[in-house]
């Protein structure tokens, strides 16, 4: 084992350690949310995940970006087989360890990786142009200015560099194979990188070995760095898209949950046997707030949704409020939720679980004006390629506004009073309900 292997093991170990530390933090943050039981209908959930997450069925609603996304997704998943080989080679100082046992199949694998890498490069380039040089409304909305745009470009550039390194490494490798340089076993097929060979052929063997080694190192260190970039990036969707779809809502989109906390009280009011003078039972555990004022009032799935959002903006593109210039953008709801839970998480890291900063998601991140602009039409939920639900967060915050803070737009207050007094949102008497029968 040489110094190179020791360096590799240290780098690899550090990357895995750091990533798992940040991953645990995200899981902790997700669990800051209320508990909700989503363990039902396992079979249906697996099916949906297979179709929507693994099968990308909702991506292709937009054929251009959808199909290119599938290329990048397939490239990412499949080329990762190569990473396994790189890790084994890195630890044991071997070279192309899978070549001998796999034989002809290895050639096929490397050939497919190269073709995929090439397709990924094309797709990524198109993505880059779309984001930076074309006017696509959903990429230019105001919540995308600054860091979100930089984040998107970092992801695209890193992917170009990784694929570029992979192809350059293969090009150098095949020249070294032809020159029968020790260590470089003759293996693999190189449908794409063969075109780089003429460019590199003039280089000396020593330079080529250096090039092969440095691109190898760049490729794997790049991947390890990228892995550790994920927890800070919208790109984390590559992990959470799957559980998010699995735990997504199976009921009709129009159905909103009936709040259990309210149900208990309403049932008591309707119970003819209830003792009106009874002292209310001491609530067990902390008193539950109605609706969501802060991220900790949301349930864990809603927080997981926020971490899964890759800010594609298909939701806001379809939202009737966003389209007509209202302040509301469902994507911003998801981004704000993530920013706030990150803030709360950092506070807890610093000051412990009792951390309070006097801020909240509702008010400091999301305004009442945004919340009241929603028509609850479900266009955002329908548009999301991974079934995230900004609407459920909006609804829970409306509930907090109305039931905790009595902050209702005055016209709505009138509507609610009417329902309470005469069983209709307008001021008509219930006794006039059937007048239409005899009107012409």
């Amino acid at each position, binding site marked *: 084992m040489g110094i190179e292997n020791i360096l590799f093991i240290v780098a690899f170990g550090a990357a895995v350690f750091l990533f798992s530390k940040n991953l645990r933090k995200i899981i902790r943050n997700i669990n800051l949310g209320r508990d909700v039981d989503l363990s039902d209908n396992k079979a249906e959930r697996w099916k949906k995940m297979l179709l929507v997450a693994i099968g990308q069925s909702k991506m292709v609603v937009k054929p251009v970006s959808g199909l290119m996304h599938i290329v990048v997704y397939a490239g990412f998943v499949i080329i990762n087989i190569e990473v396994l080989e790189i890790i084994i080679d890195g630890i044991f100082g071997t070279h192309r360890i899978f070549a001998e046992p796999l034989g002809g199949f290895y050639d096929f694998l490397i050939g497919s990786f190269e073709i995929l890498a090439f397709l990924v490069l094309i797709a990524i380039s198109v993505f880059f142009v779309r984001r930076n040089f074309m006017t696509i409304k959903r990429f230019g909305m105001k919540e995308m200015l600054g860091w979100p745009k930089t984040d998107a470009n970092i992801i695209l550039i890193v992917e170009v560099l990784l694929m570029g390194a992979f192809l350059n490494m293969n090009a150098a490798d095949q020249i070294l194979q032809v020159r029968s340089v020790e260590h470089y076993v003759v293996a693999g097929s190189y449908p794409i990188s063969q075109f780089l060979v003429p460019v590199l052929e003039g280089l000396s063997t020593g330079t080529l070995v250096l090039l092969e080694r440095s691109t190898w190192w760049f490729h794997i260190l790049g991947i390890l760095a990228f892995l550790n970039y994920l927890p800070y990036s919208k790109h984390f969707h590559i992990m959470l898209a799957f559980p998010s779809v699995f735990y997504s809502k199976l009921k009709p989109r129009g159905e909103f949950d009936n709040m259990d906390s309210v149900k208990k009280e309403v049932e008591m009011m309707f119970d003819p046997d209830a003792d009106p003078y009874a002292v209310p039972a001491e609530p067990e555990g902390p008193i539950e707030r109605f609706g969501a004022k802060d991220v900790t009032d949301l349930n864990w799935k809603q927080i997981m949704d926020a971490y899964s959002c890759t800010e594609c903006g298909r939701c806001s593109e379809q939202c009737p409020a966003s389209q007509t210039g209202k302040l509301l953008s469902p994507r911003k709801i998801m981004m704000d939720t993530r920013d706030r839970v990150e803030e709360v998480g950092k506070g807890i890291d610093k000051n412990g679980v009792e951390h309070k900063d006097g801020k909240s998601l509702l008010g400091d991140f999301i305004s009442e004006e945004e919340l009241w602009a929603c028509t609850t039409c479900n266009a955002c939920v329908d548009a999301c390629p991974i079934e995230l639900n900004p609407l459920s967060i909006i609804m829970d915050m*409306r509930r907090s506004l109305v039931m905790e803070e009595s902050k209702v737009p005055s016209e709505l207050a009138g509507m609610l009073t009417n329902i309470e007094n005469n069983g209709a949102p307008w001021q008509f008497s219930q006794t006039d309900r059937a007048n239409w029968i005899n009107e012409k």
Partner: protein
Amino acid sequence: MSDTLNVNTMADLTAKGEKPEVLFWVGCAGSFDDRAKKITRAFVKILNSVGVNFAILGTEESCTGDPAKRAGNEFLFQMQAMTNIQVLNNYEVKKIVTTCPHCFNTLKNEYPGLGGDYEVMHHSQFLQKLMEEGKLKIEGGKFKGKKISFHDPCYLGRGNGEYEAPRALLQELDAELVELKRCKSKGLCCGAGGAQMFKEAEPGTKEVNIERMEDVVEASPNIVAVGCPFCMTMMTDGVKNKEKEETLKVYDLAELIVEGNGL
């Protein structure tokens, strides 16, 4: 053409010891909104012509609580729901039809968890079923040469996945069905849902119903068909805003059938 409607209330029928096949849930808009009342009457005309044995709750009906729930007042919603469920269960109601997708969604999806389990249909589904059973024959001759577009209500379409029933009815009319550029699961909201009907919109560059009306103007039908009393209000306002009252009419599905069949 008879203008006298034959409508029983659950109370009447129960007093006679009878039970209807189905309860017609009229809804607040259908009971009180002048334009929506015409939809209610049109639907009843069809029920009468087919001879469906139905009843309404009449003065015992109360708001489902949908606008309260969507406005964030879960208490008021559940109070309304529990009250209605007591009434419905006392009458042993099993089957409900309604001309309002908001009532439809709430009764069908949100009442079961509070003790109200019913088979609930939107009137487009109910009429489609009557048609399939051969009980309702839709005469579409009057619509020859006309173009009709359907505006999907959110709570029927995206909310409950029903896109076909309204179209199955429209197909029976001798008119050309022209889809709006945004239709079915991609249909744009009229702007009234989520209790927006009862308040001014937040500041923006445009009203949602105007944005939607522009889809309609682009498709340039003679008639835009709706399946929701709130969409009716928003689309009618949109037509006025675009000054298209002469060339573009807004009708509910039931009204088109009444017109076609000369009821």
